[in-house]
């Protein structure tokens, strides 16, 4: 009898503990001041950017925020939901970027970034072109020569078709006078899979985000041929594509936007808020730890930038045969 009692008491204690820890969690989120939508699953770039903004808002006491992840159709689902439910709202934001523009073009999305109110470009990441460490390809010139000789024979690894990595591969081909459609691009899901294929020497050459590949480059598992920035990145000893005679560049940027249908005063409030975020030390720290470039560009300039990027990206995707 006593043993039964003891075991029920133990169970009650365990259940109690469970409730108590849930309560700890409960204190974490009270009604938040802002809602930031990450139009992607947890773990990716949009999610990390959203959570970074949330963190800064909290640390610098600018307000509290809830991040909601609505993934799907390269961000189109989240964006459509945002436009539908949050029009005119003064406490909702959505994160978007280069990848979204590309996938909207390929999928002929009905909603685009032109349907929301752009606030600011926040950051960017450059891509790098790499080969396995014991590859016979030593320089970008070697790669270019190979590509010109036998385009199909050079297999490229990167993220999904029509994404950032594919676009860079296509731009390189175009710049050296090779038909982008002939690029033998092998798409992998997620950064880990494609990285493993490159390090393991399964493919000829790989494309990926610089911050994701930096450690492998440092450790000597990969040889880097070029970085996709326009000019040399300070403190990074990697030659750009352009300085090696390949006229291509790519900056994988992400920014933040407010709902459509807001008043100029509301827009200004958003602009002020984000200006405070990017000026804070906690934001600089986050840029540093993530290896992101500070590319703050606000308001109308950002709007023009989005329009130009849309034209440019759509053009490359058309040449890759992904947009008809």
């Amino acid at each position, binding site marked *: 009898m006593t043993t039964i009692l003891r*075991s029920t008491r*133990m*169970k009650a204690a*365990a*259940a109690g*503990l*469970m409730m108590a*820890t*849930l309560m*700890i*969690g409960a204190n*974490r989120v009270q009604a938040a001041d802002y809602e930031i939508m990450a139009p992607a*699953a*947890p*773990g*990716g770039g949009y*999610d990390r950017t959203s959570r970074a903004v949330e*963190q800064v808002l909290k640390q610098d006491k600018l307000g509290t925020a809830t991040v909601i*992840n*609505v*993934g*799907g*159709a390269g961000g*189109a*689902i989240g964006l*459509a*939901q945002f436009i539908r439910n949050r029009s005119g709202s003064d406490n909702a934001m959505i994160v978007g970027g280069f990848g979204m523009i590309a996938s909207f073009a*390929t*999928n002929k999305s*009905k909603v685009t970034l032109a349907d929301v109110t752009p606030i600011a470009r926040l950051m960017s990441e450059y891509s790098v072109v790499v080969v396995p460490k014991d590859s016979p390809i030593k320089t970008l010139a070697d790669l270019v020569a190979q590509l010109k000789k036998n385009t*199909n*024979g050079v*297999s490229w690894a990167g993220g*999904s*078709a*029509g994404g950032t990595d594919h676009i860079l591969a296509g731009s390189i081909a175009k710049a050296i006078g090779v038909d982008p459609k002939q690029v033998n691009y*092998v*798409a*992998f*899901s*997620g*950064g*880990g*899979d494609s*990285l*493993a*294929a490159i*390090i*393991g020497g*399964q*493919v000829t050459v790989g494309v990926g985000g610089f911050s994701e590949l*930096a*450690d*492998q480059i*440092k*450790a000597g*598992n990969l040889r880097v041929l070029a970085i996709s920035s326009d000019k040399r990145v300070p403190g990074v000893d990697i030659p750009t594509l352009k300085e090696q005679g390949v006229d291509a560049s790519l900056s994988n940027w992400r920014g933040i936007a407010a709902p459509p249908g807001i008043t100029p005063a509301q827009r200004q409030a958003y602009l002020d808020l984000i200006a405070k975020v990017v000026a804070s030390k906690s934001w600089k720290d986050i840029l540093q*730890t*993530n290896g992101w470039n500070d590319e703050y560009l606000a308001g109308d300039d950002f709007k023009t930038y989005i329009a130009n990027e849309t034209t440019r990206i759509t053009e490359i995707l058309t040449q890759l045969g*992904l947009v008809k």
Partner: protein
Amino acid sequence: MDVFDGLMHGFAVALTAGNLLWALVGVTLGTAVGVLPGIGPALTVALLMPLTAKLEPIGAFIMFGGIYYGAMYGSSTTSILLNTPGENSSVVTAIEGNQMAKRGRGAAALATAAIGSFVAGTLATFALALFAPSVVTLALKFGPADYFALMVLAFTTVAAVLGTSLLRGLASLFLGIAIGLVGIDMQTGQARMALDIPYLLDGIEVVILAVGLFAVGETLFVVSRQKLLADQIIPIKGQIWMTKDEWRRSWKPWLRGSVIGFPFGALPAGGAEIPTFLSYSLERRLSKNPEEFGKGAIEGVAGPEATNNSAVTGVLVPLLTLGLPTSATAAIMLAAFQQYGLHPGPLLFQSNPDLVWGLIASLYIGNVMLLVLNLPLAGVWVRLLAIPRPYLYAGILVFAGLGVYSLHASVFDLGTLCLFGVLGYVMRCAEIPVSPAILGLILGPMAEQQFRRALAISQGDPTVFLTRPISATILTIALIALVAPPLVEYYRSRRRRCVFDQASS
């Protein structure tokens, strides 16, 4: 540093009263959140990450370890009790586990899952400490062609779930593969079978199909036969814990599962689903009572559960040694590392031995905590099944809806769930097994992508599958797995007939 010294050092770092508390909090939170449908380990870790932000790195990792294992186990709990798997790698657990629960052995199923997870987690953690660098060198040799061969091997396991009629089993399998075709084709960016519906562009989640076919389909089926199945669910029959016989039947699957899971987890594109299917089919072949499979065989819970825990530990191999995140959860953990300015990868073992060994030790501690917390709770959880049937099934449906909705906060997914629920009901009425469909949905897309990647790299040369040694070896094993059982069966029956003939003559 020597591995043993390293591990001891790790324990020295990790074993403080404060850290043990964090481990306990992590496991508790992880289990609590993981039990909620639709919230798998990845989302759990993402949700709870802010809680760890203020901790010292080692305390944070210990809590992570707890959350990670807790969430994994939590989603097995709902698989077993409610037939609503929260993530792909606990789909197989639902097949036998839920049957056990209905026969009154739910607590035993939960116990074998918990102990199996513990055993596998422990062994895999040691394997991680001992072999991580060498395993990863081997894992990198796997190319798309080799992965395709693995998929072929995994497809042979479908024989274990085909049921009584080959044709109906195949119908289910093809249905699953067809559902897997929905969405954007990764290699070309083309939408397939998406009918211009943006929600379909990313394809259909395995969890939606699994919850629809298993939980919703079954609810509809039970309603259609409620008088017939009047006393089917028994919360507890016999003793509550595992019987001696159940222990005897569990320990080998635990060990085998640990061995199967780890290398798959370590493979960059291996994952935790395929080895659970392999384990299930292996246990069925090796079992002395294969006829119990499908009706609640404990081996079918013990093996896959050990396997999936071992596999998720294996995922840490590429993460820690190369900084390669090969699952969503690993990607979030990588972000957590970076939050502390740490860069997992080839340099981490040298630059931060404290942390690496501390993390490995804390995984171990997380495992122990999981067992301590969940064994007593198993007896509590099964009492859920004592809820009167109308309320139990109504609750299951609410949970199923909640789980599917919270995957993407999408009403469209709820509609899909209704459709799959009705499909599950029709399949049950027509005695078409539902598991092959889920296997098809998991394996089909992976197999196709790897197949086409392999051919793209070889520029269309199909012999690549036979000229690569790894691929050729695995394909041979698959062939044996497919051909051997019927052959053995044939010879056995012939010998039996001979004996019988001699005896009668």
